[in-house]
Structure formats: structure tokens, C-alpha cells
């Protein structure tokens, strides 16, 4: 483990300059490199007590690295990280009893029975949560005597969550808590997370599941390429101030008189439709659906006028509209707009 870089301001002076912050977690300009790869490049993040903050991003966006810097497992190469006003590396001893951690790879000893793992983690705390109650909440009883290596992915996730919260943390970092869970387990996990939040715990969770962020988060930070590219409430991100699009029109088309060698060209049509809508004075963005060569998505204020303009363009272009569906803008739409469609 490398030594922590010198902080620009001595800790005692720091306290004088910065008044006590109500933020449970505050990350400013975090930079973290692995060799020559810059995994996190100036990331900002704030998490408040009594709130669920979701760090949403594609694979490799820097979510886990950021959370590990907050947990004191990695030392930042730049920027500052404060958890409960303390430095996660320098003040680790003071923070450990107050912070709960669920790692993405579990961190559970493979040959130890599940029940013993939880008892063991609980024994590190003076006044842990009652194990029976926690076991019932997360359905751990049925596999308490099973070694960790024989548990299913969902059982491991639930055990890891139990270990993260058994010490009644003031801040809980949960790295992809719902990965691999069946719907019943997911509901149990979400209920527990909401209850912790209502009790005042600050919860920071990473996810790439839109449903999780929409259902669970009070605050979403979208991360891409090692930076926070957007932050706000899920509702604010989807339709809030400054947003020009409030819905999505999805359509599939086929050429009316297709020459034998002509294949659907959604990318070409998307450009043409976008230009046509612009001429009509409609603020819209048209995407080709990467999954289907004949599908288009129009992100705009969805109203009857838009439908008329789109179908008129199809008629003029010699295209038959084979399906058309209008829907509200979702967090996934926002996410893809912000982070692009290229595969990671």
C-alpha cells in the first residue's frame, strides 16, 4: 500500500478554514491512477445523511475505485475525500466503527459457514445489530450452516449486505448490492436500504441498473470516464429544469419499394429525420437503435404534432412505419445520452 499523498492543508488548519459540513461523504476533484491509466479524473461526489446516493455508470467508469478511496482501501493521487469530515486513510481507526462496507467481490472467507461469517463480523463491534433480526430480514437462516463457497450469488450478496450493516453504520458503501439477486431478494435488500436511510444512515451505492437508481436513490451521480457527468434527483435528471426533451418516440420502418440490394439504414434515416424535424422547428434528437437496423428513437416533447411530422417524413421518404410507440423519458434514456452507446 502506498503512503497517502501529503495533504495541501494541515489537518488542524483544515478544520479552521472549512466549517463542519453536513455532508456524510464529500469527494472533491478525486484523481486515482493505476500505473499510467487514470481511472478517476477529477470526480466530485456528495452524499448526505438520511439519503441514498446512487453512483451510476457503465463498467470501467471509475465507480468502484471512487468508493474504495472513500473506504480507505486506496489512497487518492489527487483531490480530497472526506467521510464524516475525516480522511478515510489517515483517520481510518476512527472511521472503521462508523462505516459499513459491501465489496463488489464479496470479501467473504470461502470455507467458513455463512452464519459464522456474520457472527464474526458482528464480534468486531461493541453493540452490533441483533443477528436473528438481521438474518430474518435477509433470509439468511436457510443457509447459515453452508460454507460461503457453496452459496449462490444472491445468497452471497445478502450475506455481504448483512455484514456491511451489522455494525449500525452512519455511512454505508454498497458496491452493486443487487447484482445477481432474484426479485424477492432484491425487494428485501431495497427495503433494508430504505429503512437504514430512514434511520439517518448515509448510503452510497454503485449500480448500473437503472431500476435500482430510479426506485431507491434520492440522489444520482452519473459517472463516465472517471468524472461525474451529471448529478441530481432521478426525477430532476429525467425531466427537470434545463431539459429540452421529455419523452421518446420509438418507431420501426421498412422501405415501401425496396430494391433487392437495399438494406435498412437506420443511421442514414436518423440523420434525415433529425434534419426534417429541425426544419419544422421541433427541438429533437434522433438516434438509430444499435440493436436493430430498422429502428429509430426520437427524443423530444412527444405530442400529436410530433407523430404527424414523423409519419409525414416517412411517407415522403418512401418508408412504411411498421410500429410506433410513445413513452416518457426514462433514466436509461438520460444515462445513454450522457454516457453514449459504445460498448465498454
Amino acid at each position: 500500500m502506498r503512503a497517502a499523498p501529503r495533504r495541501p492543508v494541515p489537518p488542524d488548519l483544515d478544520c479552521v478554514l472549512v466549517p463542519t459540513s453536513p455532508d456524510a461523504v464529500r469527494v472533491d476533484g478525486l484523481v486515482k491512477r493505476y500505473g499510467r491509466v487514470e481511472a478517476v479524473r477529477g470526480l466530485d461526489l456528495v452524499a448526505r445523511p438520511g439519503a441514498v446516493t446512487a453512483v451510476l455508470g457503465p463498467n470501467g467508469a471509475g465507480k468502484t475505485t471512487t468508493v474504495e478511496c472513500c473506504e480507505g482501501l486506496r489512497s487518492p493521487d489527487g483531490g480530497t475525500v472526506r467521510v464524516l469530515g475525516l480522511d478515510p486513510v489517515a483517520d481510518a481507526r476512527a472511521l472503521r466503527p462508523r462505516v459499513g462496507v459491501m465489496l463488489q467481490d464479496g470479501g467473504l472467507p470461502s470455507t467458513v459457514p455463512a452464519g459464522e461469517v456474520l457472527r464474526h463480523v458482528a464480534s468486531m463491534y461493541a453493540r452490533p445489530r441483533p443477528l436473528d433480526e438481521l438474518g430474518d430480514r435477509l433470509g439468511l437462516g436457510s443457509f447459515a450452516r453452508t460454507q460461503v463457497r457453496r452459496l449462490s450469488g444472491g445468497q452471497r450478496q445478502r450475506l455481504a449486505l448483512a455484514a456491511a450493516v451489522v455494525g449500525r453504520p452512519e455511512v454505508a458503501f454498497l458496491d452493486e448490492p443487487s447484482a445477481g439477486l432474484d426479485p424477492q431478494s432484491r425487494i428485501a435488500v431495497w427495503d433494508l436500504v430504505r429503512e437504514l436511510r430512514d434511520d439517518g444512515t448515509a448510503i452510497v451505492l454503485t449500480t448500473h441498473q437503472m431500476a435500482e437508481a430510479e426506485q431507491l436513490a434520492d440522489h444520482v451521480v452519473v459517472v463516465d470516464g472517471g468524472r461525474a457527468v451529471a448529478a441530481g434527483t432521478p426525477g430532476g435528471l429525467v425531466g427537470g429544469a434545463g431539459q429540452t426533451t421529455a419523452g421518446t418516440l420509438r418507431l420501426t420502418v421498412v422501405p415501401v419499394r425496396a430494391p433487392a440490394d437495399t438494406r435498412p439504414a437506420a443511421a442514414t434515416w436518423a440523420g434525415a429525420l433529425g434534419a426534417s424535424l429541425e426544419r419544422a422547428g421541433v427541438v429533437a434528437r434522433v438516434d438509430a437503435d444499435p440493436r436493430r437496423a430498422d429502428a429509430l428513437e426520437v427524443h423530444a416533447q412527444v405530442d400529436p404534432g410530433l407523430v404527424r411530422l414523423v409519419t409525414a417524413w416517412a411517407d415522403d421518404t418512401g418508408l412504411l412505419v411498421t410500429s410506433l410507440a410513445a413513452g416518457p423519458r426514462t433514466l436509461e434514456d438520460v444515462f445513454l445520452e450522457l454516457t453514449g452507446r459504445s460498448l465498454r
Partner: protein
Amino acid sequence: MTGPTTGPTAAAWPPASGHAGAAPWYRRVTAQAGLEMRTVLRNGEQLVITLVLPVLLLVVLTRTTAVDLGTGDRIALVAPGVLALAVMSAAFTSQAIATGFDRRNGVLRLLATTPLGRTGLLAGKALGIAAVQAVQMAVLVVVAVVLGWRPVASGVPAAVVLVVLGTTAFTALALLVAGTMRAEAVLAVANLVWVLLLAGGAVLLPADLLPAPLGAVAQLLPSGALGGGLRAALTGGELPAGPVVVLTAWTVGAGALTARLFRWS
């Protein structure tokens, strides 16, 4: 949206129930030591290498004459060697494999975030190894005495010193292997080293039973130093200087390298 609005006023702060606080340090360390010890004693492969094989070797080498030991008092030669082998098994092979897989599975990182911390984790491991060795020594000494072993009583304190030194040297080597290699490589190396040192490391049988150049080298290995030292202590009743120097040097060297190179993830 189902949640309340965010903000410091939305909920009690700090949480109404308060955090659980850390357990006293001795409770954390003994809990970790207990987990480490139970993991070894519960795990079949670990139990074979730390206890079953040493007992088998003790019985077979004492009760059969298939291997010529060049002495009539076989148990006096074999028993200290088996004790040394047991130390090597528990402190090196078993510990390297356990730590290597715990490292790969993120166990070291997760425990480091609990009030146990990294220091507590290392202290717990050390205490756990000591507990496993107490069990090993008790079982092996009882079996050896039943087989007719009568060690020199005045050499017992020296033997204890050598066992402690040997344990620290082998544990430092175990953590060096476990903290720098992939888990699968740790498994291979830890087992291979155990077999090689058993065959040519003068741990079980004296260096003078090995071919001359190998015998000289073996006395400088931690295996040969521990085995030779225990044989000298428990048959001659003295604390030999050579093995003490060799084991101390291995502890310091491997310890320094481990402190520099050990990776927690």
C-alpha cells in the same frame, strides 16, 4: 420517487440508534484468531498437512526400519524432526494458502474496513497460528511419548524458543508468497516448497543424512535450522547458536520484503 427529500434536515443525524462502536481490541484479535484456527481445523486439506501427515510420519519412521537413520534410538531423532515439520506446515504452507485465497476473495480488504483493521488482522493471524501450533504440539508430543520418546527436559525451553523463531520465519515467508502471487500460484508454490524441504531441507531428518553439498545448504535454510536446532535442543539439552542466527536472519529478511511487497488486493 418514494423517498423523502434529501438533505441534513430530512432525518436525524447522527442516526437515532448511534453506531455500534468498536469491540475492545483484545476481543477483535481473539475473534480473528479463533476464526483462523477453526478454518484450519475444519478444512480437510489443511488438517492433513498440519496434523495427519506429521502423526503418520512419526509413527511410520519410528515403528518401521524402511529408512536407515543410522541410529538405534529412532524416536529421539524422528520426534524433533516431526515437530519442526509441523511448524513448517502450519506457519508456512497452510498459512500461505489461506492468506492467498483470502486475499483473492477480498477477505483481507473487507476485514480491513471493519474495526479489526489491518493491524488487528495480522495480530489475529499470529495468534491463530500460535493456537494451531499449541494443538499440533500437544498431539504430537503425546503420540511421541506414547511411542517411547523421552526428550531431555533441560532442552525444552530452548525448543520453545526455536519453535517461536521458526514460526515467525516461516510466517514471514508465507505472507511474502501469499501477498505477491496469484492464489493458484500460491497453492502450487506453498505445496511444492513443503515437499522439497521435506525431501531435501533437513527438516525431518538430519543434514548429515543428505548428500554433502545439499546438507551444507540445508543447514542455512529455515527448515534445516529449525529441524537441526530442535534435535540439538531435545537430545543435547542446549540452545544451539547457529540455528538461532539462521532463523533470525530469515525472519528479518522475509519480514522486510513482505512489509515492502505485500499487496492487500
